[in-house]
């Protein structure tokens, strides 16, 4: 193990010291390379894109063109590939990607008065394509497991299917059952879907190669839909007691009669719960992606500082990035876990029975225990 580590250091050291030297030889000393902007690079990665960059190459990037779907108020529906924007010097049919301003990076057009407006943009962007890819993958995985189990239910599964089964059962038994309470069977499929959707997207986001690498769960639109769905599930299946506790809680009367202070607070709580879910997932994943890219950027930031500094800092960057990627793998699981657990807890809270019933339930439980 120790020897392997030594070899790794030597190889990476050699590689990293020769690379910047050759690069330095090519550029004449007078021409300073334009300053590398870390902030821009991070923001560019975190934001969505109309095409899917696979790799940056010398004479142009290798990208997967994605369909652009627009509805302009003046010219109606448009559907074309994003590569057309590049081929025609960044504009096509009057649409172009705004270089700066309010809509920077988005497709805009000029209306009759000449001001920049955004058409309704339903383009299949990088995030949307990644989303569809992961959705298809998730359906294939889960339906594969379900079909295999249905075909031969009494056999203990091996390999990936066995692992998935164990994973599903552990989430169901350790997160959903205790948090939701006695109605868990009704909510388990939804909560499991949420868990695996988030987890798969988180993990795919950590893979830096083509089908992965998109910042899907770190996008506010995605987490917003997830949070709204959970909010709908919580509030549409809430019991009478849950609504009574919102609008007529068990507090002194002066807190709710002339000014409905407590009901107002409770009502705000209805919306803050999913809002917290939305922001938590978004912020954690965005933060993780930013950290990874920031650490990787050390290599490029130190490129102009001489070979010694650059190579040592590159090594440091690689070590840090690997470490943070492992942490992010943990975060990918934890965030999916937390989202699912909190959703389950909120659902469990919305399934409250009235206190009278609860007492009876506890009493019957005691009696049962005594009998047993």
């Amino acid at each position, binding site marked *: 193990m120790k020897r392997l580590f030594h070899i790794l250091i030597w190889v990476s050291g050699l590689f990293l010291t020769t690379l910047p030297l050759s690069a330095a030889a090519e550029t004449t000393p007078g021409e300073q390379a334009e300053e590398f902007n870390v902030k821009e690079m991070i923001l560019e990665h975190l934001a969505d894109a109309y095409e899917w960059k696979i790799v940056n190459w010398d004479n142009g990037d290798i990208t997967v063109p994605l369909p652009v779907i627009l509805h302009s108020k003046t010219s109606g529906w448009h559907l074309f590939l994003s590569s057309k924007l590049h081929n025609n010097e960044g504009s096509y049919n009057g649409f172009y990607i705004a270089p700066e301003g309010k809509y920077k990076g988005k497709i805009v057009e000029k209306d009759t008065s000449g001001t920049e407006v955004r058409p309704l943009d339903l*383009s299949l962007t990088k995030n949307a394509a990644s989303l569809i890819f992961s959705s298809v993958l998730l359906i294939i995985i889960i339906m594969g497991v379900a079909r295999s189990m249905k075909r031969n239910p009494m056999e203990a599964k091996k390999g990936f299917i066995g692992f998935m089964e164990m994973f599903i059962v552990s989430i169901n038994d350790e997160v959903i059952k205790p948090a939701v309470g006695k109605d868990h069977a009704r909510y388990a499929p939804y909560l499991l*879907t949420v868990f695996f959707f988030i987890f798969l997207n988180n993990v795919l986001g950590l893979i830096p190669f083509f089908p992965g690498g998109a910042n899907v769960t770190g996008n506010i639109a995605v987490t917003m839909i997830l949070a709204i769905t959970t909010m709908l599930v919580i509030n549409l299946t809430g019991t009478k007691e849950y609504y009574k506790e919102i609008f007529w809680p068990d507090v002194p009367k002066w807190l709710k009669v002339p000014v409905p202070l407590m009901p107002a607070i409770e009502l705000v709580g209805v919306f803050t719960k999913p809002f917290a879910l939305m922001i938590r997932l978004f912020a954690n994943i965005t933060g993780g992606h930013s950290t990874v890219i920031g650490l990787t950027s050390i290599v490029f930031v130190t490129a102009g500082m001489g070979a010694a500094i650059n190579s040592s800092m590159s090594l440091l960057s690689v070590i840090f990035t690997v470490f943070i990627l492992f942490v992010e793998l943990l975060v990918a699981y934890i965030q999916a876990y937390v989202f699912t657990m909190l959703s389950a807890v909120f659902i469990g809270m919305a399934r409250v029975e009235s206190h009278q019933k609860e007492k009876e339930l506890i009493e019957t439980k005691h009696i049962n225990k005594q009998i047993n």
Partner: protein
Amino acid sequence: MSLLTPEPGLVFWMTLSFGIVAFILIKYGFPIILQMVNKRKDYIDNSLLAARQANEELAKVTENSQAILEQTRIEQAKMLEVAAQTRDRMIEEAKGLARTEADKIVADAQKQIIIEKENAMRAIRSEIASLSISVAEKILREKLNTEEEQSKMINRLMDEVMISKS
């Protein structure tokens, strides 16, 4: 900041894809998996219960067979005892029977022997009588072969008769 404003396009695609995923997995995916897991759990529980019951029954059967074995052993001993008794009695009876038979045979033989003996005695006696007569005859004939002897004899006999008559 654009990071915090949801894009309508992505909202649309997210709603669509998550909706489809949720629909398919909630309807056909996870319920089946959970159901099958529960089914298998029940199956395993039932199998364990059945195995325990079978074990108990087996123990009971072993106990029963042990009891049956014990009983047969007792019965066997009893039967052996009875058989021994019967054997002894039969031997005893046979011995008694044989003894009386033998006694009877011996008694008969003795009787026969006595009869035979008497017969023999009688035969011997008559033989002896006839022998003595012939011997006497021969002796007489020898003694009386002279005239003188004969007349002496007759005289003596005459005397004797005379004496007895007088």
